[in-house]
C-alpha cells in the first residue's frame, strides 16, 4: 500500500504566500531555474539536454500547483502520495530558486542562508516571498524526515 503524508496549515495565513508563488510559477515555465549548463558544446545536443530538464521542471512545478489547489486553500489540508514525493521535493527546490532570483534577489546569500534578515524592512511582496521561501523549505524538511529511507 502506498504511503501518504498529510499536513495541515492555516489556510488564511498561507493564502498570500501561495498567491505569490502562483504568480512566479507562470514565469517559471520556460526557463531552467538552477544555474546549470549542458555538458556538451554541440548546439543540438545542448538543446535536447535543456529541453528534457525543462520538461522535468514543469512536472515538478505542476505538482506544487496541484498540492496547493483550491481544496487546500479552503481546508488547509494537503496530502502528498508516496509516488509524488520526488516531484514535490523538486518542485519546492525549483520554487525556492525562483523566489531567490526574483523577489529576494536584493538580499545576500549569506543573510538568506543564515536567516539573518530584518523582516521589519520587508515590503508586502518581500514578506510573502520570504514566507513562501521558508514554507517550501519546511515542507522539504518534513517530507525528507518522514519519507527518506
Amino acid at each position: 500500500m502506498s504511503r501518504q503524508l498529510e499536513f495541515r496549515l492555516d489556510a488564511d495565513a498561507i493564502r498570500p504566500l501561495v498567491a505569490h508563488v502562483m504568480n512566479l510559477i507562470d514565469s517559471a515555465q520556460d526557463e531552467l531555474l538552477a544555474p546549470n549548463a549542458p555538458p556538451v558544446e554541440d548546439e543540438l545536443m545542448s538543446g535536447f539536454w535543456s529541453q528534457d530538464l525543462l520538461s522535468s521542471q514543469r512536472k515538478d512545478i505542476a505538482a506544487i500547483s496541484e498540492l496547493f489547489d483550491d481544496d487546500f486553500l479552503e481546508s488547509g489540508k494537503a496530502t502528498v502520495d508516496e509516488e509524488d514525493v520526488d516531484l514535490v521535493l523538486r518542485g519546492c527546490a525549483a520554487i525556492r530558486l525562483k523566489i531567490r532570483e526574483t523577489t529576494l534577489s536584493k538580499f545576500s546569500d549569506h543573510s538568506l542562508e543564515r536567516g539573518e534578515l530584518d523582516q521589519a524592512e520587508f515590503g508586502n511582496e518581500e514578506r510573502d516571498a520570504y514566507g513562501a521561501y521558508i514554507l517550501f523549505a519546511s515542507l522539504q524538511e518534513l517530507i525528507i524526515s518522514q519519507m527518506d529511507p
Partner: protein
Amino acid sequence: MVSFIGGESVSPEVDVEDATELSGVWSVVVLNDPVNLMSYVTMVLKRVIGMSQSEAETHMMEVHELGRSVVWTGEREKAEAYLYQLQEWHLTAILEKNEPSA
C-alpha cells in the same frame, strides 16, 4: 589504434578527435548554492549517486564549506547520466575531465 582502409567521403579525423575528447576519466562535481537545504542535498546524493548517509553528509559538507565536491568519477557516459539527474534535482553540477598528471 583506429585506422580506416579505403572509403570515400568519410571524416575519420572528426570522429577520432571526438572520441579522444570524450574518453578518459570524468568527474561529476556538485557546486555550492545558497538555496538548497543541507538535508535536501544529502538526500539527493543518496538517491542519485547511491551514497550511504555518512558519505552523502561528508560530500554535502564539502560542498557547503569548500564550494564544491567531486561526487563521482568514471567514464563519460555514466558521468553525464549522473549529471543530468543532479541537475534534474535542481542542484548546480558540472562535469570536469581528469587530466593525467605529468
